[in-house]
């Protein structure tokens, strides 16, 4: 996968369209595509920010079991992902602990980890394990790579356990931060590192 192809796939995810629709971007420099994706992400996350902040504020009035039920039945993954970065981190993690791993994987696919890193850092490890397993089952390597970019080392190690060797090159190609590739190499067990294509070792 070329850097441009990786960027087109990530932009398509942000815009909610198929990557094939954006084929005309294949000659645009990857750095420009990344900038476009980051700016489009900002536009989407800042749109309706006032209403989302008021919803996050109102959520303080309600018990977490009820909020978890409302997240799955009313808000859905898109809004849950937008609100996740606006609620107090401990409370957000507590709500996440009550959600199904399938729903959390849907939320993870819509989330901007930069905006929700407080909640992510406080997630109970079993929740991270369940979501990583679900994302790997779906082969959602875009989301997996996005989280490897932003997760602390201990959670990267956990997540890597669920990524098959054959998928590691794809995850590596989808990472935003080249420094994280060096970190992944460092965290992989020696036998898995040896199984990687030479250019990734």
């Amino acid at each position, binding site marked *: 996968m070329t850097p441009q192809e990786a960027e087109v796939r990530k932009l398509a995810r*942000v*815009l*909610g*369209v198929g990557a094939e*629709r*954006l084929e*005309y*971007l294949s000659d*645009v*420099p990857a*750095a*420009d*595509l990344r*900038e*476009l994706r980051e*700016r*489009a992400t900002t*536009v*989407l996350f800042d*749109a*309706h920010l006032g*209403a*989302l902040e*008021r*919803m996050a*504020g*109102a959520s*303080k*009035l*309600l018990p977490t079991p*009820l909020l978890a*039920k*409302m997240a799955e*039945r*009313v*808000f*859905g993954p*898109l*809004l849950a992902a*937008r609100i996740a970065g606006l609620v107090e981190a401990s409370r957000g993690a507590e709500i996440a602990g009550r959600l199904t791993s399938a729903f959390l994987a849907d939320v993870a696919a819509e989330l901007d980890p930069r905006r929700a890193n407080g909640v992510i850092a406080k997630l109970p490890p079993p929740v991270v394990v369940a979501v990583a397993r679900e994302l790997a089952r779906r082969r959602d390597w875009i989301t997996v790579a996005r989280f490897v970019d932003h997760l602390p080392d201990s959670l990267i190690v956990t997540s890597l356990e669920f990524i098959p060797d054959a998928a590691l090159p794809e995850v590596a190609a989808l990472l935003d931060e080249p420094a994280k590739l060096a970190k992944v190499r460092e965290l992989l067990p020696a036998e898995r590192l040896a199984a990687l294509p030479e250019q990734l070792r």
Partner: protein
Amino acid sequence: MIGMAEPTLTEQLGAAPPTGVAALDPVHQRDLADALRSARRRQAAALAKAGDDALKFVPTLLRPAVRKAVGL
């Protein structure tokens, strides 16, 4: 509204797009603008629906306080 042009990519992003994107054929720039606008509309529709549905889950006694906090 009839006659009102849809916002361009530059208008939606708040400034000119990156150089390599600005150099694209105008048809493709319009397609990117359409995709971004559709994503915003889906989000607005989800928000409007959630606002309508959420109160049904809130215990009756708490509804006035929640309405006030949300600004309804």
